[in-house]
């Protein structure tokens, strides 16, 4: 029995690592998740055979109810809401790791069991990290879901957060050194829980992907630590691997957004900037759908720049239909995707793939930026900050230095936009006021449909 269990855990660990490796290439990615899934299934089934277990009914009820809810929810949710789903499921993992530690520590403080010092220290550390990942992820979920709309900020917030963390650490150390009492243990978990909340509340929506990725890494680490506590090699290896790869992924994402991780966590978007921003001059010049359609139909080259707004309006299918019509007329059509278009790096690629846009029409920022100067029409739909020339020109702008798509260099720019407001970051976009820009105001999907109709009317 022992051999079977340990053998299954070994197999699971191998499958997780191979699966993650396959998931880092588009060709094998789908096989990767299936392999990792098999590993998970094997490890879970074999755990039922663990010697000396009881409470099987509770176990099955918890697993059944939770699995059913999680499965249905994950299947039903719209693709645009994926980031917050990752956040909430990650939070559950962190919470689970923290609660495992709670079970072990309750056994020590209340039940009078004995754990070696290092094991107890690891349990407390895992509990701290897991709890922070849990409450932090829940806040991240609430923010992306629109349940919390404001970023709560107040003076001395960082000092306050550090004090909460120090208090959590201090109670944690006290727990490790066995100053007993259930109250102390409860205080430790409460402080860690609060720290996760306070740390996440001031972070703006644009930075959330990086934060979710960070919590993902933290959960991995917490799972790894609890694996050491339980002497469970599958948890040790899977948790540590995720902790490491998640940390790297967090850095890659922060780099793609040109936001050092320390900035994301400690200096809030748009507040650290001194000095007046450059004045925006001119005014927005509207255009109607028919003129816009004619402009594109008789162009040689059109680049479509989709942003998160397109995804929200569910316009990707209409946009692809529009692109197909233009391609039929012999127009050279390409899609340009900014690394952080959508809510997460790669999110927009997923959404366009869903609509059926082939890979060879989709280009990265670095591949396509040189092509804008000889492009007749750049069609911006639902993108804002990632095409804002202020990032290139205005050192006082909060987004200065962020790499952008050089849409403003195209001969003509058409921007489909719902209203006149500023972008996700709250920064005014000078592209909208430029001489070569025309604004097509309206809902993304409706406007794309109108463009399609007008181009059809033009005939061959």
């Amino acid at each position: 029995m022992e051999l079977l269990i340990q053998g299954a855990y070994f197999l699971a660990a191998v499958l997780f690592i191979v699966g993650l490796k396959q998931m880092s290439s588009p060709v094998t990615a789908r096989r990767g998740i299936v392999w990792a899934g098999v590993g998970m299934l094997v490890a879970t089934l074999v755990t039922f055979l663990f010697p000396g277990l009881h409470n099987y009914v509770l176990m099955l009820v918890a697993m059944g109810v939770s699995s059913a809810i999680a499965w249905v929810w994950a299947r039903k949710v719209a693709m645009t809401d994926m980031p917050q789903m990752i956040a909430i499921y990650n939070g559950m993992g962190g919470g689970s790791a923290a609660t495992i530690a709670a079970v072990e520590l309750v056994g020590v403080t209340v039940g009078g069991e004995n754990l070696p010092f290092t094991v107890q220290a690891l349990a407390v550390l895992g509990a701290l990290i897991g709890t922070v990942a849990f409450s932090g992820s829940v806040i991240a979920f609430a923010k992306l879901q629109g349940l919390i709309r404001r970023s709560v900020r107040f003076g001395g917030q960082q000092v306050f957060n550090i004090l909460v963390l120090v208090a959590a650490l201090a109670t944690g150390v006290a727990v490790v050194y066995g100053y007993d009492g259930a109250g102390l243990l409860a205080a430790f978990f409460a402080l860690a829980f609060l720290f996760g909340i306070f740390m996440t509340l001031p972070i703006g929506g644009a930075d959330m992907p990086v934060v979710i990725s960070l919590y993902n890494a933290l959960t991995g680490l917490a799972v790894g630590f609890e694996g050491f506590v339980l002497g469970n090699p599958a948890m040790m290896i899977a948790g540590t691997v995720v902790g490491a790869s998640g940390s790297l992924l967090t850095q890659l994402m922060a780099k793609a957004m040109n936001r050092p991780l320390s900035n994301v966590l400690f200096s809030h978007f748009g507040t650290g900037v001194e000095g007046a921003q450059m004045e925006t001059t001119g005014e927005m010049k509207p255009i109607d759908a028919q003129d816009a359609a004619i402009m594109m139909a008789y162009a040689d080259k059109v680049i479509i720049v989709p942003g998160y707004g397109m995804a929200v309006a569910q316009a990707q299918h209409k946009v692809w239909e529009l692109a197909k019509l233009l391609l039929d007329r012999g127009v050279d059509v390409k899609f340009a995707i900014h690394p952080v278009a959508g809510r997460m790096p790669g999110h927009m690629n997923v959404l366009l793939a869903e609509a059926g846009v082939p890979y060879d029409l989709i280009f990265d920022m670095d591949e396509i930026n040189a092509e804008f100067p000889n492009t007749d029409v750049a069609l911006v739909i639902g993108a804002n900050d990632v095409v804002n020339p202020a990032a290139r020109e205005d050192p006082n702008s909060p987004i200065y230095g962020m790499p952008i798509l050089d849409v403003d260099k195209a001969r003509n720019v058409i921007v489909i936009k719902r209203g006149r407001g500023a972008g996700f970051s709250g920064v005014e976009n000078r592209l909208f006021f430029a001489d070569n820009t025309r604004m097509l105001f309206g809902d993304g999907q409706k406007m794309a449909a109108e463009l399609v109709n007008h181009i059809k009317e033009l005939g061959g």
Partner: protein
Amino acid sequence: MEGGLVIEGFVALYIFMLAAFTGYEVISKVPVILHTPLMSGSNFVHGIVVVGAMVALGHAEGWVEQTLGFIAVFLGAGNAVGGYAVTERMLEMFKSSRGGK
């Protein structure tokens, strides 16, 4: 812990070190388009925590430990199942787009 391997001291440290390097190496060449699916995939992998939660609940004595263990299994299973469903849905689209090409 009953039924677990005894892994302590430097052996544990070596496992930690090697697993960390493995995690780092495994994804060091990932293209930007896979950042989101890969994050989701690694989110699924740490759902293995459900295994530990099962053991913790299985050994729980008294209502406090049982309640906590129940919560742990509930959260862990949600992590594993939800993580899998989300990742698979995302990666499914990559397949269909290649097929249409």
